[in-house]
């Protein structure tokens, strides 16, 4: 079994799977159960300033979308930060950390945008023995209306300012949690780095309305006939999160800045993908909220098996391994030619590839007698839609054409690497000649 031990910005945990700051980490009882189940770390649900705690709605606070057989694909919430007194949370944090010294315990924070508020809370946190803090600049609902959460995360100058205060008033490692509700995620990441952050974590949840009640004409979740946008998470957001992680990992300004990957991690494979794109560890919430804490056991065994297969002796061997392969469109090899190929033995003859290609793509699949489906190489642009709609994995594959062979679609032999910057149709490339 591979060694999954993780050292993220000096915070050690037996594995790289942390529970994200969220409902599962709001109370001692939950966090103890999580550690017993095997989670490597926990980011305690966001604490606010001392005083009367926030209140939550008393109607539904989650909405969802489902796939086949009601598999939960996306979850949305309008829950706020912890609604329990600060003292209770601090006492419980101290108690848990004392009993689980080998696990990572990070405290998520969200207080008003003034230096004293941050200074006060940080001193309280240090007394608990927690391993670090995560600045919640991400929550898109409720708290943002009060100038916190994503309201801060959407202004890079504020991120830098607050991060600087945190680093000034605390020696604890500091992770800045970013909101995806922004045009270019590199800007807030750069601001966090300028402010002295030890790491960034992303993504927080995405502004969303999951559905509309078509009898009451109200967005879900509905509170007394009204709804508000919530924060979207779960498997559905993973592709958005992966891209944002990669953007930060390959940005020269932030390259090397540790990243804690968040967004729809449900299996070991999801975690490995985040890590390959530069995340030093991952944080999980929706998978635990859907299946309970035990899911971490599959993540641990799966990642371990994968690392063994690959010969990786530590997670560091995996982290960032795919980053060099993330590039701009303009650098993609335009002379890389593939053609779809349908394995007739695996084909179950549903015809989905055919109708998708015929109706919406390039009319490159032929439907023959006996419902045999074959690719017309002279029409196939290798768009991959047939692969994506085929219900049988690996029935349709994209086969690379060897160099020198004539592409029957273009009549041109497959050539050496050449990208858009070198292409004759590119006005810029011609101007350069």
């Amino acid at each position: 079994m591979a060694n999954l031990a993780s050292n993220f910005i000096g915070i050690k945990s037996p594995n790289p799977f942390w529970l994200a700051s969220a409902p599962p980490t709001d109370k001692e009882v939950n966090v103890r159960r999580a550690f017993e189940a095997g989670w490597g770390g926990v980011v305690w649900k966001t604490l606010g300033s001392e005083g009367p705690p926030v209140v939550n709605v008393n109607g539904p606070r989650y909405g969802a979308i489902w796939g086949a057989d009601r598999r939960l694909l996306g979850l949305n919430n309008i829950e706020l930060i912890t609604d329990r007194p600060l003292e209770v949370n601090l006492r419980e944090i101290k108690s848990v950390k004392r009993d689980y010294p080998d696990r990572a315990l990070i405290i998520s924070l969200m207080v008003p945008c003034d230096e004293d508020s941050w200074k006060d809370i940080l001193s309280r946190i240090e007394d608990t023995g927690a391993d670090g803090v995560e600045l919640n600049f991400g929550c898109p609902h409720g708290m943002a209306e009060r100038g916190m959460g994503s309201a801060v995360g959407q202004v890079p100058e504020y991120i830098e300012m607050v991060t600087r205060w945190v680093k000034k008033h605390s020696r604890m490692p500091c992770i800045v949690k970013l909101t995806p509700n922004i045009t270019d995620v590199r800007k807030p990441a750069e601001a966090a780095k300028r402010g002295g952050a030890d790491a960034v974590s992303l993504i927080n949840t995405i502004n969303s309305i999951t559905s509309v009640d078509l009898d009451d004409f109200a967005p879900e979740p509905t509170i007394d006939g009204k709804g508000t946008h919530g924060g979207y998470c779960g498997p559905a957001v993973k592709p958005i999160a992966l891209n944002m992680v990669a953007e930060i990992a390959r940005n020269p300004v932030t390259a090397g800045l540790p990243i804690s990957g968040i967004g729809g991690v449900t299996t070991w494979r999801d975690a490995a993908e985040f890590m390959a794109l530069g995340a030093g560890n991952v944080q999980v919430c929706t998978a635990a909220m859907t299946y309970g804490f035990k899911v971490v056991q599959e993540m641990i065994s799966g990642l371990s098996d994968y690392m063994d297969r690959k010969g990786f002796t530590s997670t560091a061997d995996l982290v960032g391994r795919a980053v060099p392969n993330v590039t701009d469109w303009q650098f993609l090899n335009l002379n890389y030619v593939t053609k779809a190929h349908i394995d007739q033995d695996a084909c179950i003859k549903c015809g989905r590839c055919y109708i998708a290609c015929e109706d919406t793509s390039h009319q490159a699949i032929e439907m023959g007698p006996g419902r045999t489906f074959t690719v017309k190489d002279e029409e196939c642009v290798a768009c991959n839609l047939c692969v994506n709609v085929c219900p049988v994995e690996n029935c349709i594959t994209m086969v690379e054409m060897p160099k020198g062979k004539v592409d029957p679609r273009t009549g041109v032999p497959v050539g050496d690497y050449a990208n858009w910057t070198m292409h004759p149709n590119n006005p810029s490339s011609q101007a350069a000649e």
Partner: protein
Amino acid sequence: MSNSQLTPGIVPARLPAATYADNFADHEPPFDVHEARVAADRCYFCHDAPCMTACPTSIDIPLFIRQIATGTPDAAAKTILSQNILGGMCARVCPTETLCEEACVRETAEGKPVEIGRLQRYATDVLMAKGVHPFTRAAATGKRVAVVGAGPSGLACAHRLAMKGHDVTVLERRPKPGGLNEYGIATYKATDDFAQREVEWLLKIGGITVKNGVTLGKDVVLADLMADYDAVFLGIGLAGVNALRAAGEDLPGVQNAVDFIADLRQAEDRAAVPVGRDVVVIGGGMTAVDAAVQSKLLGAENVTIVYRRGRDKMSASGYEQEHATQTGVRIIYGAAPVRVTGTGKAEAVEFAYTEDTPEGLKLKSETFTLKADQVFKAIGQTLAGVPDGITIAAGKLPRNPAPKLWCGGDCALGGEDLTVTAVAEGRDAAEEIHVALMGTAG
């Protein structure tokens, strides 16, 4: 009464009274909402779907399943019923395992097809439970059509004609409409008087008058119908039964399986239906299976189906055969009856083993004998009561033997003798009649 499974002879009440309700309960319970959604999720919405091609009525199966999946079973039912007005009964009795579900790509992929039949039942049940009839009649055309036979083909024809604005009179020789749906289907496949409820629902379209107890050739003749109506449709089924052509066939205790099935369907009290201790069913179709299984359910001790050819030739599907054997019926393949023996009543049947040769089926010299106080003949039905002037081809009526005259269902050429095929033929005949009467398909 103190009869048991061991009581000799053909007697009623072999089982404790409470057993009958269980034995003749719904063979395959209906889906609830959740089960339907889960089953519907498995459909791949295939292009030019093989299931649809396999359906004799060409129901748009991927569309109706998608409508179930998206929470609109009423729309799903309308999709089904617009192609097959007896979609409710077909959902119960179709051999889906040799039609749509055999063609399902998930049968290919996983050996487990989408449960199309049960989904169809779910959708049609939901709609019918509301008492809704989703079709309305076109403006009256003033044309009048006679339909002979209120079985699946006649009812499908009548409904389509009524929908097109024609007035339809349906003449049925039996006391109740429904044909084989009412008299020929195993009791556990259409419980709770479904056949009659479906007919009542179908007639809500309006414009259809059903006259029961009217026999063609006795109470009315075809020539008069042809003269009185603008068109005539014959859906008279197969009223004759093939003979065994074996000695002892006339002994008491030897009976047509179709009559047994009909009597059981019509019985107020299943326990009152007499059944033998040792039952032998001769034949290899669904009638044989239905008679055998129900004999077992009535408490017969030993029930054996004997079929003259091999398993693969048997017209009852593999699923039906399995159902029979699971119920406790024994199936003997490759044997044909030589004689029924007994003193004053059937006591045993002697069989000879058979051999399938290029020259046809031959009896071998080796024989065996089965005890039998009740023998059911289920070796096929034949056309009977054909009106004068129609030339029969291959034992069946042509589909359009004369101007103004159409035929469909089991009595007519084309397709298998299935409820769903009969519906398709009745519906298509109605479309042709409409064109003939109006000069346009509109």
